[in-house]
Protein backbone atom coordinates (compact mmCIF):
# COMPACT_ATOMS: atom_id res chain seq x y z
CA UNK A 1 0.00 0.00 0.00
CA UNK A 2 1.53 3.33 -1.08
CA UNK A 3 1.11 6.21 1.34
CA UNK A 4 0.44 9.80 0.28
CA UNK A 5 3.57 11.93 0.21
CA UNK A 6 4.57 15.49 -0.65
CA UNK A 7 5.51 14.22 -4.11
CA UNK A 8 1.90 13.22 -4.69
CA UNK A 9 0.71 16.63 -3.51
CA UNK A 10 3.14 18.25 -5.92
CA UNK A 11 1.79 16.18 -8.82
CA UNK A 12 -1.73 17.41 -8.06
CA UNK A 13 -0.57 20.99 -7.54
CA UNK A 14 1.12 20.92 -10.94
CA UNK A 15 -2.19 20.29 -12.69
CA UNK A 16 -3.82 23.36 -11.13
CA UNK A 17 -5.16 25.14 -14.22
CA UNK A 18 -5.07 28.67 -12.80
CA UNK A 19 -2.27 30.07 -10.77
CA UNK A 20 -2.62 33.83 -11.04
CA UNK A 21 -5.35 36.07 -9.72
CA UNK A 22 -7.04 38.37 -12.19
CA UNK A 23 -7.99 41.70 -10.69
CA UNK A 24 -10.17 43.16 -13.45
CA UNK A 25 -13.07 40.65 -13.32
CA UNK A 26 -13.07 40.94 -9.53
CA UNK A 27 -13.28 44.73 -9.73
CA UNK A 28 -16.09 44.53 -12.26
CA UNK A 29 -17.95 42.10 -10.02
CA UNK A 30 -17.58 44.50 -7.10
CA UNK A 31 -18.98 47.41 -9.08
CA UNK A 32 -22.06 45.37 -10.00
CA UNK A 33 -22.41 43.96 -6.53
CA UNK A 34 -22.18 47.34 -4.78
CA UNK A 35 -24.94 48.57 -7.08
CA UNK A 36 -27.12 45.60 -6.10
CA UNK A 37 -26.40 46.14 -2.42
CA UNK A 38 -27.90 49.61 -2.61
CA UNK A 39 -31.19 48.44 -4.12
CA UNK A 40 -33.78 48.35 -1.35
CA UNK A 41 -35.73 45.19 -0.84
CA UNK A 42 -38.58 45.54 -3.19
CA UNK A 43 -42.11 44.38 -3.61
CA UNK A 44 -42.76 41.36 -5.73
CA UNK A 45 -44.64 41.78 -8.97
CA UNK A 46 -48.17 43.02 -8.62
CA UNK A 47 -49.65 40.46 -6.29
CA UNK A 48 -50.51 43.07 -3.69
CA UNK A 49 -52.64 45.16 -6.03
CA UNK A 50 -55.93 43.71 -4.94
CA UNK A 51 -55.16 43.87 -1.29
CA UNK A 52 -53.81 47.38 -1.26
CA UNK A 53 -56.72 48.51 -3.37
CA UNK A 54 -59.07 46.99 -0.89
CA UNK A 55 -57.07 48.54 1.90
CA UNK A 56 -57.59 52.02 0.54
CA UNK A 57 -61.28 51.34 0.02
CA UNK A 58 -61.57 50.03 3.53
CA UNK A 59 -59.76 53.04 4.90
CA UNK A 60 -62.31 55.29 3.24
CA UNK A 61 -65.21 53.14 4.36
CA UNK A 62 -63.95 52.87 7.88
CA UNK A 63 -63.59 56.62 8.20
CA UNK A 64 -61.95 57.50 11.46
CA UNK A 65 -61.14 53.92 12.26
CA UNK A 66 -57.98 54.00 10.15
CA UNK A 67 -56.63 57.06 11.94
CA UNK A 68 -57.51 55.58 15.29
CA UNK A 69 -55.69 52.36 14.51
CA UNK A 70 -52.27 53.96 14.08
CA UNK A 71 -51.19 52.56 17.41
CA UNK A 72 -52.19 49.01 16.61
CA UNK A 73 -52.48 46.97 13.46
CA UNK A 74 -55.53 45.20 14.81
CA UNK A 75 -58.60 46.98 13.49
CA UNK A 76 -61.39 44.63 14.44
CA UNK A 77 -62.64 44.99 10.87
CA UNK A 78 -63.53 41.80 9.02
CA UNK A 79 -64.76 41.12 5.53
CA UNK A 80 -68.34 42.31 5.51
CA UNK A 81 -69.72 40.22 2.66
CA UNK A 82 -68.88 37.45 0.26
CA UNK A 83 -67.37 39.73 -2.35
CA UNK A 84 -65.12 41.34 0.22
CA UNK A 85 -64.04 37.91 1.42
CA UNK A 86 -63.36 36.77 -2.12
CA UNK A 87 -61.34 39.81 -3.08
CA UNK A 88 -59.42 40.46 0.11
CA UNK A 89 -59.55 37.06 1.77
CA UNK A 90 -61.23 36.21 5.03
CA UNK A 91 -59.91 37.32 8.39
CA UNK A 92 -59.27 40.58 10.15
CA UNK A 93 -58.04 43.53 8.14
CA UNK A 94 -54.71 44.59 9.60
CA UNK A 95 -53.58 48.18 9.31
CA UNK A 96 -50.09 47.96 7.86
CA UNK A 97 -49.18 51.33 9.41
CA UNK A 98 -49.77 50.09 12.93
CA UNK A 99 -46.84 50.49 15.27
CA UNK A 100 -47.06 46.82 16.19
CA UNK A 101 -47.42 45.57 12.62
CA UNK A 102 -44.22 43.52 12.71
CA UNK A 103 -45.19 41.82 15.96
CA UNK A 104 -48.68 41.14 14.65
CA UNK A 105 -47.36 39.65 11.42
CA UNK A 106 -44.96 37.45 13.40
CA UNK A 107 -47.77 36.29 15.66
CA UNK A 108 -50.27 35.68 12.86
CA UNK A 109 -47.80 33.57 10.87
CA UNK A 110 -46.06 31.76 13.72
CA UNK A 111 -47.75 28.45 12.91
CA UNK A 112 -46.33 28.33 9.37
CA UNK A 113 -43.22 26.15 9.53
CA UNK A 114 -39.87 27.38 8.24
CA UNK A 115 -36.68 25.32 8.02
CA UNK A 116 -34.72 27.92 10.00
CA UNK A 117 -35.20 31.02 12.11
CA UNK A 118 -33.11 32.93 9.59
CA UNK A 119 -35.47 32.03 6.74
CA UNK A 120 -38.49 33.04 8.82
CA UNK A 121 -36.82 36.36 9.58
CA UNK A 122 -36.06 36.95 5.90
CA UNK A 123 -39.72 36.40 5.09
CA UNK A 124 -40.88 38.60 7.96
CA UNK A 125 -38.48 41.40 7.01
CA UNK A 126 -39.68 41.34 3.45
CA UNK A 127 -43.40 41.11 4.14
CA UNK A 128 -43.40 43.82 6.78
CA UNK A 129 -41.27 46.15 4.67
CA UNK A 130 -43.26 45.49 1.55
CA UNK A 131 -46.73 45.76 3.04
CA UNK A 132 -46.05 48.85 5.12
CA UNK A 133 -44.61 50.99 2.36
CA UNK A 134 -47.96 52.69 1.85
CA UNK A 135 -49.76 54.40 4.66
CA UNK A 136 -53.44 53.62 5.24
CA UNK A 137 -53.35 50.27 3.54
CA UNK A 138 -54.74 47.07 4.92
CA UNK A 139 -54.12 43.42 4.48
CA UNK A 140 -56.29 40.54 5.59
CA UNK A 141 -54.78 38.01 7.95
CA UNK A 142 -55.55 35.25 5.44
CA UNK A 143 -53.77 37.05 2.59
CA UNK A 144 -50.82 37.73 4.85
CA UNK A 145 -50.59 34.06 5.82
CA UNK A 146 -50.78 33.15 2.14
CA UNK A 147 -47.80 35.34 1.31
CA UNK A 148 -45.79 33.88 4.16
CA UNK A 149 -46.82 30.34 3.18
CA UNK A 150 -45.34 31.05 -0.27
CA UNK A 151 -42.09 32.08 1.39
CA UNK A 152 -42.06 28.98 3.59
CA UNK A 153 -42.62 26.70 0.61
CA UNK A 154 -39.75 28.41 -1.24
CA UNK A 155 -37.51 27.95 1.75
CA UNK A 156 -38.39 24.27 2.23
CA UNK A 157 -37.89 23.69 -1.48
CA UNK A 158 -34.43 25.17 -1.15
CA UNK A 159 -33.73 22.97 1.87
CA UNK A 160 -34.80 19.94 -0.14
CA UNK A 161 -32.64 20.94 -3.13
CA UNK A 162 -29.60 21.41 -0.93
CA UNK A 163 -30.19 18.10 0.83
CA UNK A 164 -30.42 16.31 -2.52
CA UNK A 165 -27.23 17.97 -3.66
CA UNK A 166 -25.47 16.94 -0.47
CA UNK A 167 -27.03 13.47 -0.47
CA UNK A 168 -28.43 14.21 2.99
CA UNK A 169 -31.32 11.76 2.76
CA UNK A 170 -32.70 12.51 6.23
CA UNK A 171 -32.91 16.23 5.54
CA UNK A 172 -34.37 15.62 2.07
CA UNK A 173 -37.05 13.33 3.54
CA UNK A 174 -37.95 15.89 6.19
CA UNK A 175 -38.26 18.68 3.62
CA UNK A 176 -40.32 16.42 1.38
CA UNK A 177 -42.69 15.63 4.25
CA UNK A 178 -43.18 19.31 4.98
CA UNK A 179 -43.82 20.11 1.32
CA UNK A 180 -46.30 17.23 1.09
CA UNK A 181 -48.15 18.58 4.11
CA UNK A 182 -48.20 22.18 2.87
CA UNK A 183 -51.54 21.75 1.09
CA UNK A 184 -53.06 21.07 4.54
CA UNK A 185 -51.71 24.16 6.24
CA UNK A 186 -54.47 26.45 7.50
CA UNK A 187 -52.89 29.31 5.57
CA UNK A 188 -53.26 27.34 2.35
CA UNK A 189 -56.65 25.75 2.94
CA UNK A 190 -58.28 29.06 3.90
CA UNK A 191 -57.33 30.67 0.60
CA UNK A 192 -58.00 27.54 -1.41
CA UNK A 193 -61.55 27.61 -0.07
CA UNK A 194 -62.24 30.94 -1.75
CA UNK A 195 -60.01 30.49 -4.79
CA UNK A 196 -59.66 26.84 -5.74
CA UNK A 197 -56.44 27.16 -7.72
CA UNK A 198 -54.70 29.71 -5.50
CA UNK A 199 -52.19 27.05 -4.49
CA UNK A 200 -52.82 24.71 -7.42
CA UNK A 201 -49.12 24.80 -8.23
CA UNK A 202 -48.38 22.91 -5.00
CA UNK A 203 -49.20 19.69 -6.84
CA UNK A 204 -46.34 20.51 -9.21
CA UNK A 205 -44.01 21.03 -6.28
CA UNK A 206 -44.95 17.65 -4.82
CA UNK A 207 -44.51 15.92 -8.19
CA UNK A 208 -41.10 17.50 -8.71
CA UNK A 209 -39.88 16.60 -5.25
CA UNK A 210 -41.07 12.99 -5.50
CA UNK A 211 -39.47 12.71 -8.92
CA UNK A 212 -36.25 14.29 -7.63
CA UNK A 213 -36.56 16.82 -10.42
CA UNK A 214 -34.77 20.02 -9.41
CA UNK A 215 -35.43 21.65 -12.74
CA UNK A 216 -39.18 21.04 -12.56
CA UNK A 217 -39.29 22.29 -8.97
CA UNK A 218 -37.47 25.48 -9.91
CA UNK A 219 -39.70 25.94 -12.91
CA UNK A 220 -42.94 25.64 -10.88
CA UNK A 221 -41.71 28.10 -8.29
CA UNK A 222 -40.40 30.54 -10.89
CA UNK A 223 -43.72 30.48 -12.73
CA UNK A 224 -46.12 30.67 -9.80
CA UNK A 225 -44.39 31.94 -6.68
CA UNK A 226 -41.43 34.12 -7.52
CA UNK A 227 -39.40 33.28 -4.44
CA UNK A 228 -37.28 35.80 -2.61
CA UNK A 229 -33.73 35.12 -3.84
CA UNK A 230 -32.42 35.00 -0.29
CA UNK A 231 -34.77 32.08 0.43
CA UNK A 232 -33.56 29.96 -2.49
CA UNK A 233 -29.74 30.30 -2.57
CA UNK A 234 -29.40 26.62 -3.50
CA UNK A 235 -32.22 26.59 -6.01
CA UNK A 236 -31.47 29.37 -8.48
CA UNK A 237 -33.86 27.74 -10.97
CA UNK A 238 -36.65 29.17 -8.80
CA UNK A 239 -35.72 32.68 -9.90
CA UNK A 240 -37.45 33.54 -13.19
CA UNK A 241 -35.16 33.64 -16.19
CA UNK A 242 -33.79 37.12 -16.68
CA UNK A 243 -34.73 38.27 -13.19
CA UNK A 244 -32.13 39.65 -10.86
CA UNK A 245 -30.76 37.39 -8.17
CA UNK A 246 -31.79 40.09 -5.75
CA UNK A 247 -35.33 41.39 -5.40
CA UNK A 248 -36.61 43.63 -8.19
CA UNK A 249 -36.39 47.37 -7.57
CA UNK A 250 -39.32 48.90 -5.78
CA UNK A 251 -41.31 51.42 -7.81
CA UNK A 252 -42.69 54.24 -5.75
CA UNK A 253 -46.46 54.30 -6.38
CA UNK A 254 -46.51 58.04 -5.74
CA UNK A 255 -43.85 58.87 -8.29
CA UNK A 256 -46.25 58.67 -11.23
CA UNK A 257 -44.24 55.93 -12.89
CA UNK A 258 -46.45 53.04 -11.98
CA UNK A 259 -46.67 51.26 -8.71
CA UNK A 260 -47.84 48.11 -7.07
Amino acid at each position, binding site marked *: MTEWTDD*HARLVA*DVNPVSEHESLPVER*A*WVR*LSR*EMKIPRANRRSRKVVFVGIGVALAVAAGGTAAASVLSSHTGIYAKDREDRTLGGPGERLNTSGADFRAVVAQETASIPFPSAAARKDSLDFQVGDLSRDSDSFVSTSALRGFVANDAICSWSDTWARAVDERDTAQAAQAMDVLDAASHWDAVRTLQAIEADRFGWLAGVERAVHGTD*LKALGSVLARHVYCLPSLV*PDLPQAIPVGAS*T*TDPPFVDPHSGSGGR
Partner: protein
Amino acid sequence: MRRAQAQSTDEEMSESAFEELFRRTAPEVHAYLRRRIGAESEDLLGEVFVIAWNRRRDLPRPELHRAWLFGVARRLVLVHLRKQRQSNQAAVDLARQGVLASSADPERDSVVLRAMEALPERDRELIRLTIWEGLTTAEAAVAVAMRPGAARVRLHRARRRLANDPSIRGLMTRDRRPNHAPL
Protein backbone atom coordinates in the same frame (compact mmCIF):
# COMPACT_ATOMS: atom_id res chain seq x y z
CA MET B 1 -25.47 26.36 5.88
CA ARG B 2 -26.00 24.69 9.18
CA ARG B 3 -27.54 26.99 11.75
CA ALA B 4 -25.22 25.59 14.40
CA GLN B 5 -22.37 27.27 12.59
CA ALA B 6 -24.19 30.53 12.12
CA GLN B 7 -23.64 33.70 14.06
CA SER B 8 -25.68 33.64 17.21
CA THR B 9 -26.91 37.21 16.88
CA ASP B 10 -29.06 38.87 14.30
CA GLU B 11 -26.48 41.58 13.77
CA GLU B 12 -26.08 42.46 10.13
CA MET B 13 -22.69 42.82 8.56
CA SER B 14 -22.11 46.46 7.56
CA GLU B 15 -21.42 47.41 3.96
CA SER B 16 -17.83 48.28 4.78
CA ALA B 17 -17.28 44.95 6.55
CA PHE B 18 -18.81 43.18 3.60
CA GLU B 19 -16.55 45.05 1.19
CA GLU B 20 -13.59 44.02 3.31
CA LEU B 21 -14.75 40.40 3.11
CA PHE B 22 -15.13 40.74 -0.67
CA ARG B 23 -11.69 42.27 -1.15
CA ARG B 24 -10.09 39.60 0.98
CA THR B 25 -11.79 36.55 -0.52
CA ALA B 26 -13.09 37.39 -4.01
CA PRO B 27 -9.77 36.82 -5.84
CA GLU B 28 -9.53 33.28 -4.43
CA VAL B 29 -13.18 32.51 -5.09
CA HIS B 30 -12.81 33.85 -8.61
CA ALA B 31 -9.76 31.71 -9.22
CA TYR B 32 -11.71 28.68 -7.98
CA LEU B 33 -14.58 29.50 -10.36
CA ARG B 34 -12.20 29.98 -13.28
CA ARG B 35 -10.76 26.54 -12.64
CA ARG B 36 -14.20 25.01 -12.73
CA ILE B 37 -16.17 26.90 -15.36
CA GLY B 38 -13.81 29.26 -17.17
CA ALA B 39 -15.24 32.28 -18.96
CA GLU B 40 -18.48 32.53 -16.99
CA SER B 41 -16.66 32.70 -13.69
CA GLU B 42 -17.15 36.45 -13.40
CA ASP B 43 -20.95 36.13 -13.45
CA LEU B 44 -20.89 33.38 -10.86
CA LEU B 45 -18.51 35.39 -8.70
CA GLY B 46 -21.17 38.12 -8.57
CA GLU B 47 -23.82 35.53 -7.68
CA VAL B 48 -21.74 34.12 -4.85
CA PHE B 49 -21.44 37.50 -3.21
CA VAL B 50 -25.04 38.53 -3.88
CA ILE B 51 -26.06 35.40 -1.97
CA ALA B 52 -23.55 36.22 0.75
CA TRP B 53 -24.91 39.75 1.01
CA ASN B 54 -28.51 38.54 1.16
CA ARG B 55 -27.60 35.98 3.79
CA ARG B 56 -25.16 38.09 5.73
CA ARG B 57 -27.04 37.34 8.93
CA ASP B 58 -26.45 33.62 8.36
CA LEU B 59 -22.71 33.77 7.83
CA PRO B 60 -20.70 31.46 10.06
CA ARG B 61 -18.07 32.76 12.40
CA PRO B 62 -15.45 34.91 10.63
CA GLU B 63 -12.75 32.25 10.40
CA LEU B 64 -15.14 30.15 8.30
CA HIS B 65 -16.30 32.93 5.96
CA ARG B 66 -13.90 31.85 3.22
CA ALA B 67 -14.97 28.22 3.49
CA TRP B 68 -18.65 29.19 3.45
CA LEU B 69 -18.11 31.26 0.29
CA PHE B 70 -16.35 28.33 -1.38
CA GLY B 71 -19.34 26.19 -0.42
CA VAL B 72 -21.73 28.62 -2.11
CA ALA B 73 -19.44 28.82 -5.15
CA ARG B 74 -19.29 25.04 -5.35
CA ARG B 75 -23.08 24.69 -5.28
CA LEU B 76 -23.44 27.32 -8.01
CA VAL B 77 -20.82 25.51 -10.09
CA LEU B 78 -22.71 22.23 -9.72
CA VAL B 79 -25.96 23.89 -10.79
CA HIS B 80 -24.16 25.58 -13.68
CA LEU B 81 -22.65 22.30 -14.86
CA ARG B 82 -25.97 20.52 -14.51
CA LYS B 83 -27.53 23.23 -16.63
CA GLN B 84 -24.93 22.76 -19.27
CA ARG B 85 -25.64 19.02 -19.19
CA GLN B 86 -21.94 18.49 -19.39
CA SER B 87 -21.52 17.55 -15.77
CA ASN B 88 -17.93 17.01 -14.69
CA GLN B 89 -16.72 16.75 -18.24
CA ALA B 90 -16.81 20.53 -18.60
CA ALA B 91 -14.56 21.03 -15.60
CA VAL B 92 -12.28 18.24 -16.64
CA ASP B 93 -11.98 19.55 -20.16
CA LEU B 94 -11.30 23.03 -18.86
CA ALA B 95 -8.68 21.79 -16.49
CA ARG B 96 -7.11 19.76 -19.28
CA GLN B 97 -7.02 22.67 -21.69
CA GLY B 98 -5.61 25.06 -19.13
CA VAL B 99 -3.06 22.67 -17.76
CA LEU B 100 -1.96 20.84 -20.82
CA ALA B 101 -1.56 23.97 -22.95
CA SER B 102 1.11 25.34 -20.66
CA SER B 103 2.47 22.15 -19.17
CA ALA B 104 6.12 21.23 -19.26
CA ASP B 105 5.10 17.58 -19.16
CA PRO B 106 1.63 17.25 -20.73
CA GLU B 107 1.77 13.47 -20.67
CA ARG B 108 2.40 13.37 -16.94
CA ASP B 109 -0.28 15.96 -16.22
CA SER B 110 -2.76 14.10 -18.36
CA VAL B 111 -2.16 10.97 -16.28
CA VAL B 112 -2.70 12.89 -13.05
CA LEU B 113 -5.90 14.48 -14.31
CA ARG B 114 -7.25 11.11 -15.42
CA ALA B 115 -6.46 9.57 -12.05
CA MET B 116 -8.24 12.46 -10.30
CA GLU B 117 -11.25 12.02 -12.56
CA ALA B 118 -11.54 8.44 -11.36
CA LEU B 119 -12.18 9.62 -7.81
CA PRO B 120 -15.74 10.25 -6.59
CA GLU B 121 -16.70 13.89 -7.08
CA ARG B 122 -16.62 14.85 -3.42
CA ASP B 123 -13.27 13.15 -2.84
CA ARG B 124 -11.82 14.89 -5.85
CA GLU B 125 -13.21 18.19 -4.60
CA LEU B 126 -11.63 17.71 -1.18
CA ILE B 127 -8.26 17.14 -2.80
CA ARG B 128 -8.63 20.13 -5.09
CA LEU B 129 -9.85 22.43 -2.32
CA THR B 130 -6.95 21.56 -0.06
CA ILE B 131 -4.21 21.55 -2.70
CA TRP B 132 -5.37 23.98 -5.37
CA GLU B 133 -7.28 26.42 -3.19
CA GLY B 134 -5.14 26.08 -0.08
CA LEU B 135 -8.08 25.45 2.24
CA THR B 136 -7.49 23.67 5.51
CA THR B 137 -9.27 20.35 5.95
CA ALA B 138 -11.74 22.04 8.31
CA GLU B 139 -12.46 24.75 5.73
CA ALA B 140 -12.83 22.21 2.94
CA ALA B 141 -15.28 20.31 5.14
CA VAL B 142 -17.47 23.41 5.41
CA ALA B 143 -17.23 23.99 1.67
CA VAL B 144 -18.49 20.50 0.84
CA ALA B 145 -20.92 20.48 3.79
CA MET B 146 -19.33 17.64 5.72
CA ARG B 147 -18.35 17.30 9.34
CA PRO B 148 -14.62 18.00 9.80
CA GLY B 149 -13.94 14.48 11.12
CA ALA B 150 -15.70 12.85 8.20
CA ALA B 151 -13.88 15.13 5.74
CA ARG B 152 -10.54 14.26 7.29
CA VAL B 153 -11.21 10.52 6.95
CA ARG B 154 -12.51 10.95 3.43
CA LEU B 155 -9.57 13.09 2.37
CA HIS B 156 -7.16 10.55 3.83
CA ARG B 157 -8.84 7.73 1.89
CA ALA B 158 -8.98 9.80 -1.29
CA ARG B 159 -5.28 10.57 -1.09
CA ARG B 160 -4.43 6.96 -0.50
CA ARG B 161 -6.60 5.88 -3.38
CA LEU B 162 -4.96 8.41 -5.65
CA ALA B 163 -1.46 7.42 -4.49
CA ASN B 164 -2.31 3.78 -5.25
CA ASP B 165 -3.76 4.43 -8.67
CA PRO B 166 -1.58 2.27 -10.96
CA SER B 167 -0.91 5.16 -13.34
CA ILE B 168 0.20 7.42 -10.48
CA ARG B 169 2.41 4.67 -9.08
CA GLY B 170 3.89 4.31 -12.53
CA LEU B 171 4.56 8.02 -12.67
CA MET B 172 6.23 8.01 -9.29
CA THR B 173 8.45 5.10 -10.28
CA ARG B 174 9.32 6.80 -13.53
CA ASP B 175 10.13 10.10 -11.83
CA ARG B 176 12.46 8.39 -9.37
CA ARG B 177 14.56 7.01 -12.22
CA PRO B 178 17.32 9.33 -13.40
CA ASN B 179 16.69 10.67 -16.90
CA HIS B 180 13.33 8.89 -16.96
CA ALA B 181 12.02 7.70 -20.25
CA PRO B 182 8.66 8.96 -21.50
CA LEU B 183 5.59 6.95 -20.51
